[in-house]
């Protein structure tokens, strides 16, 4: 059954940037989207995976390419599960299902949708809302796997360079590169020096234990202030915007790891640390991996619920009465369980999310040519007296997730319980006020606020901006097209460093519970609060190892056309093109940068 309410899939869109590529790209079709579902399921498979979220989809592709036969099902009529990108109508249904108790590990869903969506200016399908939005660091395990598996060819990526820290009622833009530090005229000389010293240190902090070991058990804030004499503003930027840590107590090694992640990602593909995928985040990526798995031989079926699995007979029974023998393992997302599942790992941690669609393009927050920004509200920066960070990921129309003139604000916090909603509301209010001020037109003539920098570039003095608007009462209001609030549960704590043990212990219980329908089933982890994709590959590898025995050949994909090196002078594929005068595409056609993995033998 083809789902009637959904956005065009990647195969239907056929990204135009590949139209001029040398070998026309084929985006493989996916059953249930472009192709009808298979009439019958196979009788025997190696692995059965239930749920098509990020981890499950990466796992499906890895197993399919390793040679296992995979049956991948989802009880929903769309792909993505916990990673789905949904239209407004799909969100309505999703919220109802949560409140009817049909989607476990989500609760307290509240939704407001303006009548302008559906009956007015906008269509439900104009919007693609991620239920767990993510950003991709350019130096990360997932990115190398995207390249290696060629799944990146189905996707389009865009850069995100603007990271703001909310301080003194305004959004401070980060000063984080050597160049920015060097040319910044506001920074005192000694601060420049201290900041640079820290940035140099953190790039290979592990090799310098003499510097951080004495602080190993202390918080990163103490370390930065005592050892590097950094000021509060820089400390907050480093911990919360660059490191994307959740609170001030984060320990030194964890925080250093996270800060380094940002810095080493900077300038890999250009002057930005992260990418996000157009048309939707994890929803697109998981679908991409499903397509790859399908090419590798996996069978797909939507609208299929696993009712029970018998570990002794190895028989899995589905809601429609069909059966399959599973030779190796059954993998299941906690969202796909049925009534008699008794082995699901505990999901004690809450993530609270508030997602809003606003009728404002928010370009004030984006870098030129970009369409996304991160805003971080450090502890204590909000009216609610927040103890945990609130992270906001903003997507503009350029992301093709919303129509022009609108944007999507994704806010989330790791705060637990009732406080969380208060923090999110306070962050929303701060963002609302801030966008009204910054998009207000009488700003440009104020000489105190707009200054000209060393090379003639405009520098907006955000500190003054904050002060001069302290008393500002906006004349207009932000128009909300949609507001969505929900709580998600996960077994993964807000972590500092991705550690396989985080996922290991959640995967399986060895207990055999009489009457349980899921004895022997391996469980995947619900998405954590982490805003980046960093947990995905580690979590998928843990499961992969449990099934295959080792993770040595995890995505050890050998595409046949990889090694066709021909003899002859015209062949320059042996050398990394030192100078490439092709214009950089905003859309990061990463297809042509594939050689990140393949580099010439000659050092020029």
């Amino acid at each position, binding site marked *: 059954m083809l789902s009637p309410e959904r956005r065009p899939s990647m195969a239907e869109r056929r990204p135009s940037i590949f139209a001029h590529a040398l070998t026309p790209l084929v985006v493989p079709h996916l059953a249930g989207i472009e192709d009808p579902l298979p009439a019958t399921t196979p009788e025997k498979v190696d692995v059965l995976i239930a749920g098509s979220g990020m981890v499950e989809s990466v796992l499906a592709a890895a197993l399919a390419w390793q040679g296992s036969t995979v049956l991948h099902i989802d009880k929903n009529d769309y792909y993505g599960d916990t990673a789905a990108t949904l239209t407004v109508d799909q969100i309505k249904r999703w919220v109802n299902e949560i409140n009817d108790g049909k989607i476990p590990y989500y609760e307290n869903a509240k939704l407001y949708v303006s009548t302008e969506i559906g009956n007015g200016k906008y269509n439900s399908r104009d919007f693609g809302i991620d239920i767990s939005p993510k950003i991709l660091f350019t130096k990360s395990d997932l990115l190398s796997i995207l390249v290696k598996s060629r799944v990146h060819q189905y996707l389009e990526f865009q850069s995100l360079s603007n990271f703001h820290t909310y301080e003194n009622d305004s959004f401070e833009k980060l000063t984080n590169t*050597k*160049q920015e*530090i*060097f*040319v910044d005229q506001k920074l005192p*000389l*000694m601060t*420049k*020096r201290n900041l*640079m*010293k820290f940035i*140099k240190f953190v790039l290979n902090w592990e090799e310098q234990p003499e*510097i951080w070991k004495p602080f190993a058990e202390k918080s990163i804030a103490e370390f930065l202030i005592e*050892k590097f004499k950094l000021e509060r503003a820089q400390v907050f930027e480093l911990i919360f915007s660059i490191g994307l840590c959740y609170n001030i107590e984060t320990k030194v090694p964890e925080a250093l790891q996270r800060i380094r992640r940002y810095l080493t990602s900077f300038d890999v593909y250009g002057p930005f640390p992260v990418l996000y995928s157009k048309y939707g985040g994890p929803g697109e990526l998981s679908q991409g991996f499903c397509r790859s798995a399908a090419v590798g031989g996996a069978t797909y079926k939507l609208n299929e619920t696993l009712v029970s699995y018998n570990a002794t007979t190895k028989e899995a029974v589905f809601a429609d009465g069909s059966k399959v023998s599973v030779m190796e393992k059954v993998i299941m997302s906690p969202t796909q369980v049925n009534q008699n599942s008794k082995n699901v790992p505990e999901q004690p941690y809450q993530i609270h999310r508030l997602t809003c669609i606003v009728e404002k393009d928010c370009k004030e927050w984006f870098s030129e040519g970009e369409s996304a920004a991160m805003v971080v509200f450090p502890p204590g920066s909000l009216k609610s007296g927040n103890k945990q960070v609130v992270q906001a990921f903003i997507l503009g129309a350029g992301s093709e997730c919303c129509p022009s003139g609108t944007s999507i604000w994704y806010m989330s916090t790791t705060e637990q319980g009732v406080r969380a909603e208060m923090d999110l509301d306070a962050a929303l209010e701060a963002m609302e006020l801030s966008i009204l001020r910054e998009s207000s037109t009488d700003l440009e003539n104020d000489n105190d606020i707009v200054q000209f920098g*060393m*090379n003639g570039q405009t520098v907006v003095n955000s500190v003054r901006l904050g002060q001069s608007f302290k008393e500002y009462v906006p004349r207009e209001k932000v128009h909300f097209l949609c507001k969505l609030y929900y709580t998600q549960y996960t077994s993964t704590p807000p972590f500092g460093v991705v550690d396989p043990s985080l996922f290991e212990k959640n995967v399986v219980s060895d207990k055999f519970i009489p009457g349980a329908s899921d004895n022997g089933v391996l469980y995947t982890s619900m998405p954590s609060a982490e805003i980046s994709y960093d947990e995905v590959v580690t979590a998928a590898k843990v499961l992969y190892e449990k099934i295959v025995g080792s993770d040595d050949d995890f995505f050890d994909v050998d595409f046949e056309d990889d090694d066709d*090196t021909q*003899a*002859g*002078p*015209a062949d*320059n594929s042996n*050398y*990394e*093109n*030192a*100078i*490439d*005068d092709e214009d950089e595409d905003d859309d990061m056609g990463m297809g042509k940068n594939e050689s990140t993995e*393949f*580099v*010439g*033998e000659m*050092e*020029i």
Partner: protein
Amino acid sequence: MHGVKRRQWSRELLKQKRIEDEKKIKQYRSLVDTVLNLKETQIYTKDSLKLSKEVLQWNPEFNTVWNFRRDIIENVKGQLDVTFWEDELNFTMAELKKFPKVYWIWNHRVWVLKNHIDSSLKIWQRELIIVNKLLDMDARNFHGWHYRRRIIKVIEDRTGKSNDHEELELTTQKINKNISNFSAWHQRVQLITRMNDTDEFENRKEFITNEIDYITNAMFTDAEDQSVWFYMEWFLEYEMVSKVLNHNEYTTILNKFQSNILIINEDDKEFSGKENPWCLKMLIIIEKLQTNLGIEIKDGKSKEWIAKLIEADPLRKNRYLYLLHEEK
């Protein structure tokens, strides 16, 4: 090329590569023999032109063949139209993309531009845009900088107008992007010297003051980068600076540098327990400059700093011992 990773070859791959290489070497050798033979016998034909190109695509380091190629072009010039010259430019560009650090390719490209059938100002200006793009890709390729100077020279000769101010601004931009861009600092030295000699500064004093701020800023941003220290030394010793500034102003500036460098060195010591050799070296230079100015230094620290240098930078111990000897 900066930032290019070496490729790891597995034993299996290496073996396979050897076999393929052998084939290529054979092919290459016979081609080279043919072309050198043509050169010996002075066969200047379009055919020779084609073969010489093939050799150069294999091996752009073969300068003899580049020379031969130019001889052929000279001889068959009458038969060559605009397309040939444009193709020749495309050919050298394709080669530069692969081998950005081969002198002969850069050399040949300039020759092509000079002998181009339509060697107008326009093609030189176009060339400037191209070289700017190259420098954007790798701002630290000194070939690119050198080549750029050659282009600018031709443009300046033809327009009779100096580009120095724009050029200086370009070095600022490149340095802002990356303080460690030694080529850009070097270019800055060249430009300032020339602009001083040809009297191009509107206000020398203002320029000097700004430059001192710029250096100070750079030194605080990265006190381990040698380009900054080298440039600082050159600038403080540069005759224009001591001539334009009066005795008092110059002394004040030296003192200011001295105290800033002391702050940085102290800070380094507190952080890592080690002295910063660059700071020590510069302190010694400044003290020497002060002495040369006739300033009486009551308790000169140079000896102490040299002693510390020996400890902080033992690799150059003998050089410092020599300096210490000089001090006496």
